[in-house]
Each structure stands twice: as structure tokens, then as C-alpha cells.
């Protein structure tokens, strides 16, 4: 497979995953806001923190308001991570690798683009329409995943696609946990209250983890939730589960299952082992924020290492 094409497939899947995550974050937050006191900043500021685009937001907006945050995260063209930008990029990427994907996948990504484009052109949104929009984005992305699973061969392109998807997913789960965990623990008077429970439940729902968490732990406690989202090996959105999946892809792509044959494999294996042999108490003791921050940095390193190991032209200049 062409290096450029592999890179494009990798990113196409990262963008789709990102768009789907944002739509879910906003939908859950929307739902949550209906149960909380009507302080818009308190409700919506954390969402911009999660996505890491606070500086850009400030440069474009004078205050934090629901409609402004939603516009910024869903449609803002200036925001390279808005749902609109992500879907547009995913579609441009899909167009560039049209020969590697099926008609089904392409047409669905294309549909998604027309959906966000229509959304962007729409001038006014009522609250129910916002939620419909988020739902459509989530469904649209999941439809792409489904078509990917059922129409794409398990070839190199498939593994680069998966790799992009799970690395993005691990990053988003870690960011969501990072932001919310602190916010919730920093308001001690609420601990144990019904508001507190709603908030923890919302965190789980933001990463589609509520049902599976309940099944495994029953009670909502901060430590268990953190354990579930970081260290669970069975839940597909936990950081460790994502890394396990990523490693499987890299083994196939690199052709070696023992040790490592490139930097990407080495770095990924190291992070995966780190999480395999750590207990949640140790993470909490060492500082949750610092720990998650470190994971995010390492994920970035892994992403660049994948680029250098597989996509960069200079590596292959001799036959």
C-alpha cells in the first residue's frame, strides 16, 4: 500500500472517531445541563477544556454560552477540530483513498458531509434540533464503522484504519476523564449528592460506558470509574483496551509479534505494558491529572512514530 494512502486512511478514521466523540460529548452535556442549575459557563466550559481548544475559543468568542460553545464545537470552520472540520477532512481523505474503500463506505461518508454542510447552512437551531443533529452525526459515523466492518477486507488498509480509530478513541477517553474527574472531586460539598451521581453518570455516558460499567461494578465510585475507563481490558473504549487493539494492528502491519521492529511498536508496547501493570490506587496516588496528561503525550508520540515508521517517504528511498 502507498505510504501516503496509508497515512490518509489512518487520519480519515481518526477524524471520524473525533467527530463522533464530539457529537456524543455535546449530546450528553446537553442532557446533563437540563438537570443542573442554569449556569452556562459552569456547564459548557469543561467541554471546551476536554477538546483542548480553549485558546482558540477565546480568540473567537467573548463569553461562554451554550449556543456559542455548540457552534464552536459543531460548526466553526476556524476550529480544525469542529465536527464540521472533522467530517470535511474525513471526506477529503476518503476522496483521496477512494480506490481503497468501498462504494458503501464512500457514499456514507459523503452523506455525512452533506449532513454537516446542511447543518452549517442552517441559521437557527432549536434545542430539539440540536439534539437531532448530534444523534444523526453519531448514527452516521456508526454507520460508517458498520460498513467498514462488513465491506472492507482485513488488509493493510483495514489495520491502519483501526489503528487511527483506537488511538483517537484512547485520547478522547483520557481527555474526558481528565477534565471531569477533577471538576467533580474539586466540589467536595456535592460528593454523594444526587447531583454528584448524575455528573458521574454523565461522564460514563460521554464515552458510552454507562451500561457496561453498571454491569461490572454496580455502584458509581470515582476510583472504579477511573479504573474502568483507564484499565479495563474488555470495554472497547477504555484506554488499555484501545492500546491492546492498536498493538494487534501494529503486530500485523510490522510482521513481528515478539519485541518490536519499529519505533511505533516499541512505544506502543511500552505504554500498553505500563497500563497492564499498574493499579488504579497507584494512579490516584501519583496524581490523576499528571498520569492522564502523560498518557496523552505518549499517544502523540506513538502517532508520530507511526508516521515515521510507515508513511514517511525518506524511509523508503532505496529499493
Amino acid at each position: 500500500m502507498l505510504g501516503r494512502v496509508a497515512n490518509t486512511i489512518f487520519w480519515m478514521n481518526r477524524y471520524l472517531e473525533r467527530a463522533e466523540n464530539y457529537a456524543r460529548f455535546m449530546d450528553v452535556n446537553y442532557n446533563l445541563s437540563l438537570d443542573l442549575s442554569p449556569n452556562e459557563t459552569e456547564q459548557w466550559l469543561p467541554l471546551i477544556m476536554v477538546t483542548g481548544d480553549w485558546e482558540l475559543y477565546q480568540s473567537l468568542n467573548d463569553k461562554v454560552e451554550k449556543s456559542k460553545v455548540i457552534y464552536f464545537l459543531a460548526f466553526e470552520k476556524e476550529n480544525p477540530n469542529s465536527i464540521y472540520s472533522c467530517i470535511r477532512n474525513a471526506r477529503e481523505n476518503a476522496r483521496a483513498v477512494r480506490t481503497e474503500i468501498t462504494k458503501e463506505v464512500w457514499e456514507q461518508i459523503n452523506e455525512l458531509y452533506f449532513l454537516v454542510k446542511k447543518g452549517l447552512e442552517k441559521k437557527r437551531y432549536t434545542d430539539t434540533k440540536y439534539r437531532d443533529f448530534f444523534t444523526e452525526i453519531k448514527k452516521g459515523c456508526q454507520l460508517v464503522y458498520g460498513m467498514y466492518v462488513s465491506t472492507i477486507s482485513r488488509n493493510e488498509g483495514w489495520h491502519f484504519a483501526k489503528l487511527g480509530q483506537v488511538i483517537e478513541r484512547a485520547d478522547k477517553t483520557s481527555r474526558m476523564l481528565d477534565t471531569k474527574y477533577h471538576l467533580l472531586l474539586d466540589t467536595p460539598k456535592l460528593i454523594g449528592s444526587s447531583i454528584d451521581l448524575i455528573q458521574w453518570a454523565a461522564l460514563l455516558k460521554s464515552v458510552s460506558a454507562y451500561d457496561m460499567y453498571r454491569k461490572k461494578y454496580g455502584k458509581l465510585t470515582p476510583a472504579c470509574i477511573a479504573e474502568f475507563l483507564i484499565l479495563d481490558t474488555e470495554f472497547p473504549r477504555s484506554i488499555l483496551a484501545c492500546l491492546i487493539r492498536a498493538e494487534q494492528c501494529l503486530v500485523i502491519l510490522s510482521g513481528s509479534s515478539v519485541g518490536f521492529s519499529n519505533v511505533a511498536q516499541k512505544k506502543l508496547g511500552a505504554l500498553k505494558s505500563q497500563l497492564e501493570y499498574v493499579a488504579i490506587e497507584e494512579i490516584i496516588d501519583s496524581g490523576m491529572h499528571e498520569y492522564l496528561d502523560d498518557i496523552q503525550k505518549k499517544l502523540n508520540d506513538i502517532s508520530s512514530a507511526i508516521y515515521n515508521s510507515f508513511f514517511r517517504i525518506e524511509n523508503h528511498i532505496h529499493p
Partner: protein
Amino acid sequence: MSKLDFSSYDTQGFYDEMFDENNVVRPNYKLFLNRLEQIGQGKLNRLRHSTDRAQLSLGMTFNVYSDNQGIERILPLDIIPRIIENSEWSFIEMGLQQRIKALNLFIQDIYNDQKIIKDNIIPKEMIFSSDAFLSQLQGFTPPKSIWCHITGSDLIKGADGKYYVLEDNLRCPSGVSYMLENREILKRTFPELFEQLDVKPVYDYTHVLRDTLESLSEKEKPTVVVLTPGIYNSAYFEHSYLAQQMGAELVEGQDLTVQDDMVYMITTHGLQRVDVIYRRVDDDFIDPLVFNKDSLLGTPGLFNAYLKGNVVLVNAPGTGVIDDKAVYAYIPRVIKYYLGEDMILPNVKTYICDEKDDCKYVIENIHKLVVKQTDASGGYGMLIGPKSTKKEQQEFIAKIKDKPRKYIAQPMINLSRVPTMTGDTIEGRHVDLRPYALYGNSINIIPGALTRVALKKGSIVVNSSQGGGSKDTWVLNS
């Protein structure tokens, strides 16, 4: 259900493909009209835009160069097809085969022995002054001596009901994906129209294309790729479509590298040799070492690898000299010279401004003529005399006097028309016809074409960049 009503349809004195001058339906459209009437006006209007939606969903979109707003356009597909009887098609087929055979011999000759120049059939300057003539190719013969593997000539039908060749398009003719996808869209939207009509299928084009490309390599299983300028090119949909349908890798210039005059593509597992390149990048941009130095679309060293015979380029570089509109004027003589035959499909009468008498005639009669720049395409750089203002005519006269070699003129031809959906009514619109020929072991003309239609009332410019649309083209088995 209101029946479709053609009683007020007016051919307005033009040659109409569907109705004769007495408004009687022609035999090739008889059965079709019958089926169309059963669909009814209401459904037709409802489904009119479904072809637009189908195109958007397939991603059959392009950007127009002049408006860099990134606005995607489609080439609107009109649902009334252009229908051609088998006997008429056989004539086109014969004419194109003759023409392409002669053109290929012509290109081989001008880059090698130049007999046609020595025998004074065509003036030397006419060839050497063409920007598309590549002196680097002198003495070169491509595999199997084939230069123009893929041709998409533009044909038109005049008021006399006869076909003429307007242009040959030997560089990178585009539009074949529209021929293929238009058929699919129409079959999906109006399956009932096809019943009992016995239309020749076009679906095997990409198979024949792949066979043609493979036949040019010595290897048993050559690696074939399609080279595209990238996703921002207006024909990118077609590039990806063809690559995908052929199962070939779609590459950009940056994906290729040349080592020791061999061409490789850069893959995740190192370099892989490339044998045949169906390139949709113009000559000027394929290799910055030889041609346009600033080109980022090409691959350094590609041209030399080609000259060494280590890779096949399709079409061969240098074929563009035939697309020069002044060289075109000599084609009847070219056919006679190489094949000893009279031209089957005639040329349009062409005045060469570089020739004194012709130039004088053109300047005196500019209001009656269509003036074209010899190296332009896409409907740009032309003047339609009868529809132009005095001022525009004066501007063109100045241009002609300044650079006569760059201009030719042709009589204005009233292109034939086909009924076309316009709003709620059906009116005649002017069309041309672009069939596609593949030249490998033999010259193969696919029984179908892209029919381009000038959607603007009265317009004769069919180009997609100038408000043109398209029609499916049916060649009947009977």
C-alpha cells in the same frame, strides 16, 4: 396521470435527433417515446432532480478553475437520452478507426522519419511551432508504436444531419466516467425506460482499458497505475473511478520515485516497481527535470525512464501536437497520405489564420465564423462570430493579426439538438458527442459516448465549465 405532451415541441429549424422536420418521431426514438409516455409528465418532473442527488452521493463533482470558492458542481444529467441506431453507429465506428489509425501513424512519422513533411503534405513550421511538439522525442518509438492509446474525439452533427469531427483530444480526454455512471444512474432512476429497448451495454470499458494498458508491457502481470494531479483536479472523480474499477493503484507524483531510470511507487513496505502509467497529468507537468520546473505534480526522472523504455506512459507524451487546432485542418490530407483512403468522418471546414488567404477571409467574415485559439480547450479562448459584439470582433482581429499561428476559424455549425427537460417543459438543446476509443492490440470503440448538452437556451457551448450538462448515449442493437 397526465401524458407527456410533445405536440408543442418545436425543432425551430434545427436538426433534431428525436423528431424530423415535420415533427414526426424518428425511428430510433419511436419505442423510447412510447415508453416515456407511459411514465407520464408528473413522475418525470418528480424524478428530474434524482439524477442530481445520485451524482452528489456518488461524489461525481468537480470544481471550476475560475471560481476558486471550492464550490462543487455536478455535470447535470438530463434524463432524455441520445439514441443512435446501430447502422449510424457502425459508420461512426469505422470513421473513428480510420482516423485514429492514421493519426497514430502521423505521430510516429513526425517524431521519426518526417516523411509527411518531406513530401510537402504539411509545412514543417506547422509541426515545430506547436507548443505540444516535444523535440526530446525525436527518434523515439513507444511500445508497439502506439502513441494514442486513449482517444475521446468530439463529434457534432450539423443541420445536414451529417457527423463531423470537431476535435480529436489525444492528450487526456476526460468524461468516460460520465458515460459509465450516467448509464448506471439512468438504469437506477428509470429502469422502465430500458425495457424492450435493446441498448448496447458499456460496462466493459474499464475491463478493456485494463487489458489495453497491460498489453503495452512485456511483463505477464505488469503493475498498472493511474497518475492523478490530486483531489483538487476537476477530473479527480474520474481518475479515482477508473483506478478503482480497474483495480489499479491511484498515485500522485509524490508517490513515485525514479531510481536508476526505473519507476517505483513508495509503499509502506518499501519500493514497488511500476510498469504502466495511465497518466492524467499533462505533458508539461509529468517531470520537473525536463518540463515545467515548478511542477509539483510530476516525478523527477520519469521522462528519462520512459525514454529508456522502462515504463509505459499512456497516452504517450507528445501526442498533443495533433490537438493543435491548426494541425487539425490537415487531417483529411494526413488520412489520404498514410492510408490512401478518403476520410470517412469529415472535418469541419477550417481556415488557418497563419495562411494568408485564409487569414484575410477570416478577418473579413469574422461575424459569420467561430474563431478558436489553436492551443486552448474547454470552450475558452474562442469567439462565436454571430453571437459576438463588434467590439469583441475587433479584439479578436487584433489578436489574430498579432499571432496568426495561434488562431483558426470555422463556419458556425448549428449543432443538432435533443429534447431536454427544462423546468416543466421539454425543449430542444444543442449537443455534441464524445465516443471513446482504446488502441491496444486493435482499435476498440466502446458502443456509447458522453453526449454533452448546452443547457442554456440557444447556447452551442457544451463544456462543463460553461453551463453544459450531459445525456446518456444509447447505441441500439438494431
